């Protein structure tokens, strides 16, 4: 029987929530890596037992964890428990080594970006925000990091190499940190074109590669950000998240700082589709697994007040690719709710009907097994939720 495994990253550990296809009764395991900030966990589409996790700490830096048994046990890739460094063995202690490429041979990527005060500032690795396993190889995985860059591992996370053409393509000096830091938070691998990758950075914008990550170009035409000197600049936009329609990979959606956007041409041009939303500020956006024009957002009041308008937690669904939105409230608190839903904290499964999930900074993880019509909290007292991903299991 089919089932789902929900991978939840929180401020103080990771949790794994499992259920059968009905998505009514749940088993909860965790906290895994108790006390650590778990920015993101995601499973391989090719091998659901292979899960990658970003474990981070203000004290101890970055750790990459990997499970090969669906989250029952974990290890740092290349460093199995009990093993020590040995001559001629696999690289050890390098799974958390994210070093920016500054070599001339790869185009001498720029080593500074714009800082808060407008001066140029060196790139400094801080943490991994997002891990995106390959669609075709369980050992290949991409990492979006802060300060913004894209790394790739082809050996199951043992070692990492920067795809330096992104930072080096020319607009890097104009990137700048948003309030949450200068992070590469979204990575979309095109299901129909193995060489096409989309990424998004706060605060720079969206970018696309058509050659597997070697070269990149900004794809921000149509974005208007009134809070930057040139509202229609090529880069500098605070994109909060991007999502892709699985059946139509050229169809992209974006939750920008303000504005919900849609592209029908793989990011070449964007159109605002905020329509009748109560506010078009927010962080998450996702697409129904079966209906490319059915999308979900959680409006947040404003950039100064990161909670739902009127204290009512509402998911908004559009079945027309935006512009026309309906509020979804059944099972969600409609009074005195002042949580936030962070950018990587919404996901969908591929069951029929499509399940939709999101987590809050108040520690709730909600599930709708019927495409958003009805919601139930799977858990409601976790630490602040940073990320939610779902694996649909056969």
């Amino acid at each position, binding site marked *: 029987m089919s089932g789902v495994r929900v991978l939840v990253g929180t401020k103080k550990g990771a949790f794994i929530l499992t259920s059968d296809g009905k998505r009514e009764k749940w088993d909860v395991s965790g906290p895994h890596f108790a006390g650590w900030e778990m920015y993101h966990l995601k499973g391989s589409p090719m091998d659901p037992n292979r899960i990658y996790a970003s474990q981070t*700490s*203000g004290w*101890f830096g970055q750790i990459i964890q990997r499970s090969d048994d669906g989250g029952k046990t974990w290890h740092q890739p290349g460093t199995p428990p009990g093993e020590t*460094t040995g001559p001629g063995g696999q690289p050890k*202690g390098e799974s*958390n080594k994210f070093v920016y490429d500054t070599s001339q041979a790869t185009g001498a990527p720029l080593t500074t970006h714009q800082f808060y005060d407008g001066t140029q500032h060196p790139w400094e690795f801080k943490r991994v925000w997002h891990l995106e396993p390959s669609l075709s190889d369980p050992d290949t995985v991409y990492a979006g990091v802060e300060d913004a860059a894209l790394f790739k591992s082809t050996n199951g996370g043992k070692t990492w190499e920067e795809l330096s053409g992104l930072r080096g393509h020319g607009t890097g000096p104009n990137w700048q940190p948003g309030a949450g830091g200068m992070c590469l938070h979204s990575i979309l691998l095109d299901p129909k074109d193995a060489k096409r990758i989309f990424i998004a950075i706060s605060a720079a914008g969206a970018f696309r590669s058509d050659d597997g990550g070697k070269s990149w170009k900004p794809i921000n035409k149509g974005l208007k950000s009134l809070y930057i000197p040139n509202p229609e600049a090529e880069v500098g936009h605070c994109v909060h998240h991007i999502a892709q329609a699985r059946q139509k990979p050229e169809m992209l959606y974006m939750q920008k700082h303000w504005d919900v956007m849609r592209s029908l041409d793989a990011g070449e041009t964007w159109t605002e589709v905020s329509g009748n939303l109560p506010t078009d500020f927010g962080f998450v956006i996702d697409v129904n697994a079966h209906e490319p024009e059915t999308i979900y957002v959680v409006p947040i009041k404003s950039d100064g007040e990161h909670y739902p308008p009127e204290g009512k937690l509402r998911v908004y669904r559009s079945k027309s690719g935006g512009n026309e939105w309906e509020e979804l409230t059944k099972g969600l608190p409609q009074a005195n709710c002042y949580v936030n839903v962070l950018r990587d904290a919404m996901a969908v499964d591929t069951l029929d009907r499509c399940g939709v999930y999101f987590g809050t900074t108040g520690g709730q993880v909600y599930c709708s097994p019927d495409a958003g019509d009805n919601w139930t909290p799977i858990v409601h007292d976790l630490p602040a939720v940073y990320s939610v991903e779902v694996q649909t299991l056969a």
Partner: protein
Amino acid sequence: MVRVELPAHLRALAHVKGEVTVEVAGTVCILSVLDAVEAKYPMLEGTIRDHGTRKRRPFLRFFVCAEDWSHDPLDKPLPEAVAQGQEPLLVIGAIAGG
């Protein structure tokens, strides 16, 4: 044999309980002790010293015989009491955060 006391989270990463002990060849200083710790517990690489800069992470401190050595040169010889294993080198996480 040099004794090293690590923060709880690093002990969990290294799959150890209590103090760790390492053999250090040559001068016993913080640098050589950390090198020995990372060689014995490679999963700790990057957690005490930044991978790129090799500098001490800002929220960690080194204490030796009740003194803060965090800003001393890493190659400064440690006291005999530490070199002989009578006192541990303490790696301490700052009391901060939420």
